[in-house]
């Protein structure tokens, strides 16, 4: 009890309501540094809402989000990022008139080790640019570096968004359906990027792509209708029949279990 470090990310009793719709209901989750965690579930289960609550773009009605033992529930997305929460977007975002490279420079800036005064120091800007180039190489967009981001195709924008998320070198990385809309080789590139992630980073992956989840995740949370159906080791959890049912969504909305399991 005394020496164990606090979890990298801890969610306690998160609840979020949109009007009459209960999008998330009493969701808890605890991840250690280096976790490889997937959140799966049918559409409308509350996966994106969960990510938004963790990233700070949305605030919970109840419950807390803690990063390394520190309560960040009241912090803005920018404040959380500076503490180490990075994310990718389901609908990727970039500054269309800046180049791909400049977009990554901007994304890496607030957490770059040489950020102080970088806006007026060309030398520090060069350092930032060099780091950004490495991230573009990592995601396979190096040959697009000088192109305005607005000219990228949809799948490439997703890779750029991934590079932007990585550039902040987060300690907790949230990935919102990074494989959606990618071609087969894009998915392969994505998996190799995921495999090469820093071992200390805790990763939360929301994804439908079964192979990506199965290959990447060590632990899995299954959400259904805003509630945690089960959390557990990936292989066993994915094999459980009720998870398969819920994941494949055999009914319109799988009824949440009356008593919490797992």
């Amino acid at each position, binding site marked *: 009890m005394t020496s164990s470090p606090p979890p990298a990310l801890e969610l306690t009793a998160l609840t979020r309501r949109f009007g009459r719709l209960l999008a998330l209901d009493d969701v808890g989750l605890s991840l250690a540094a280096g976790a490889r965690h997937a959140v799966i579930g049918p559409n409308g289960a509350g996966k994106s809402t969960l990510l938004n609550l963790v*990233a700070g*773009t949305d605030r919970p009605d109840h419950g807390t989000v803690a990063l390394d033992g520190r309560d960040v529930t009241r912090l*803005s*997305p*920018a*404040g959380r*990022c*500076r503490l180490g929460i*990075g*994310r990718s*977007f*389901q*609908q990727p*975002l*970039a*500054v*269309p*008139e*800046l*180049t791909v*490279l*400049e*977009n990554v*420079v*901007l*994304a*890496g*800036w*607030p*957490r770059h080790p040489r950020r102080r005064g*970088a*806006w*007026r120091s060309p030398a520090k*800007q*060069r350092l930032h*640019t060099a780091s950004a180039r490495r991230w573009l190489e990592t995601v396979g967009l190096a040959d697009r570096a*000088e192109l*305005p981001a*607005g*000219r*990228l*195709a*949809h*799948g490439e*924008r997703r890779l750029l*968004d991934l590079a*932007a*998320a990585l*550039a*902040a070198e987060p300690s907790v990385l949230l990935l919102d359906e990074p494989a959606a809309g990618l071609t087969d080789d894009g998915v392969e590139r994505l998996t190799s990027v995921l495999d090469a992630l820093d071992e200390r980073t805790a990763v939360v992956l929301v994804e439908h792509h079964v192979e990506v989840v199965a290959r990447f995740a060590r632990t899995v949370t299954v959400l259904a209708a805003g509630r945690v159906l089960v959390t557990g080791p990936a292989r066993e959890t994915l094999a459980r029949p009720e998870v398969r049912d819920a994941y494949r969504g055999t009914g319109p909305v799988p009824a949440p279990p009356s008593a919490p399991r797992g």
Partner: protein
Amino acid sequence: MGLLDAHLVPAVDGVAYGLLLFVVAAGLSLAFGTAGVLNLAHGTLYAIGAYAGAACGDGTWGGLVLGLAAGTAVAGAAGAGLSFAAFPLARRGHLAQALLTFGLALVGGDLLVQVFGADEPPVRVPGALDTSVTLLGHRYPAYRLGFIVMAVLLAAFGSWVLARTRAGAAVRAAADDPRMLAATGVSPRAVHLGVLTAAGALAGGAGVLGAPIIGPGPGTSENVLMLSLVVVVLGGLRSPWATLLAAVAVGEVQTLGVAVAPDLAPYLLFAAMAVALIARPRATEPPGGHDPSPTPAPDPLTWLRTRAKTLPWRRTRAKTPLGTGENAKGWDGVGRGTPASSPGRTGTGASLPERTGGKASLPGVALARRVAVPALVFGALLLLPGVLDAYTVSLAGSALALGLLAVSVTLLTGHAGLPTLGQTAPFAVGAYTTAVLAGAGWTAGPVQVVLAALAAVVFCLVTGPAVVRARSTTVLMITLAVGELASAVAGRLTSVTGGADGLVGFPPTRALWGTAGMVEERDVYTYALVVTALAVAVTLLVLRSPAGRLLAGARGAEARMRASGHPVGRYLLVAYVGAGALAGIGGSLTVTVQQYLSPADVGFEIAAFALLAAVIGGTTSVVGALCGAALIVLTRDWVAGAWPGHGPLLLGVLFVVAVYLLPRGLAGLRRGPNDAAAGGHALLPAPAAPPNDKVPT
């Protein structure tokens, strides 16, 4: 009960007044929220109705009905005309359309004065309504009670159509995603036309029926537009009930407030506004974003644009025979200024890959160009007084002051993505600070400029938090309200500002400590030029530093920036404060150049001119904005001098022409129409793509 009793009549009046504002504001928010048109000609539509009501009203029911039919039909037709004029601009964003409607409002206001004269015509209501009824022991005009009933019925009908019918659903869908609506089989063109026609008819009808409450006159358009904008900002666009409440509140302030506390009433509106803006700045967000993805569909105006490429030069030559040789030099000065826009442009993204890529070729040459070209332009401008007459030199000084205001608008609109109509507020703060300082004997130029900038900074720090929390066209409305209320305060705070009479007779500014006061136009001009050059140089340096890219990020991908840890709100506040300082310096220069100051110098027209100047300049080009300001001052004071009394008409035409022919401003003329997609912006910087939108592969 005594208090209530004494104020019952003004209180009921306030309800009638408020309902009138509600009907007008409903049309305004309908056009804005669903057709995306911030219709600055909406007050003019009301005025059309009011004039029609006055002209047809002869004290009979027939006259009222005839007036109602005529006023509604004419204003509806004018609304339809607006739709035809504005629709081709729809994909260029809200700002282009707002400027177009303002230009048309200037033209329409001029025409109304031509037709109906500059007086306020009397309004007669049918005899049966021209009596009074007894209300809780008070006599009250029957007409106003009848009006209250009519307005309630109209409001109920309108909200039923919007919320319950298929047409209403189509209207709301058009606000969300017009191109997707088209793909669903509904013509967005028809929706646009229908909405603007209905809004026009609503304003016209309100004008006819409301003429006995807010009568026709030369000031009617602006008065009604401002009050209904205040209602829309207070009430937000989401709920008609909130708008109704806001309208009645404003009505009560304008009637009951004046009756109870005549001294405080003007500030009550300001205070209500401030509270609403600070408490719920997001309430006025339009319900949905427009699809910003640009389409290359051949524009009917494309060929005009291509032709317009050579236009400024042709115009120069065409003018020469008309004006004197000296005046032609004035045009030439503008023309020579245009190439200088290159440093401005290089700062805005076009050359960024070059710099960050570290492959800038021939740095010596590039540096020489960067320093030499502005230096040459500065030198040429410095020599202007030698070849121009005194009047033109003082015009050039005014142009510089307006130019700085336009630069501050460019900074906010083009770089920070906050389109503003309210930079006249810090401009006014700077101007009045300078005038008051001069009156108190502080005449040293540097002191005036620095204190004016500081005062503007303080003002912006106070108003900034409300402004930078809003986005897109909402900013336009909020800043419009801020600017308008600032100029209202300038008009009322007689002890400091001299009220409507303005300030005059303060000692002239001294360029430096120990020098004599500047009275010669050429000295004043040189002083203004040096101050402007310094301010512009600092602005360009900051914009060209990586800080400029931070603003680009805040404008282009705000959620990404926030998620990457950038305090976007702080960046925008810094930009707003910086732009305020620029505007404050511009205000200080105005006072030095003009040697007098009145509320009209900081009014809505000046705000619209500054925005137009920024747009003519291409919204991101600092030097382009200066050129735009020069063009506007020339049109207003020099060309209009040849046709007295029609300055507004000419400016209105300038607005319309500029919006149509210069979609990317002067800077766009130097760039190909195609590469602009990568480095430049249309009139309004493309709003951050709504989550539903993607650039097609």
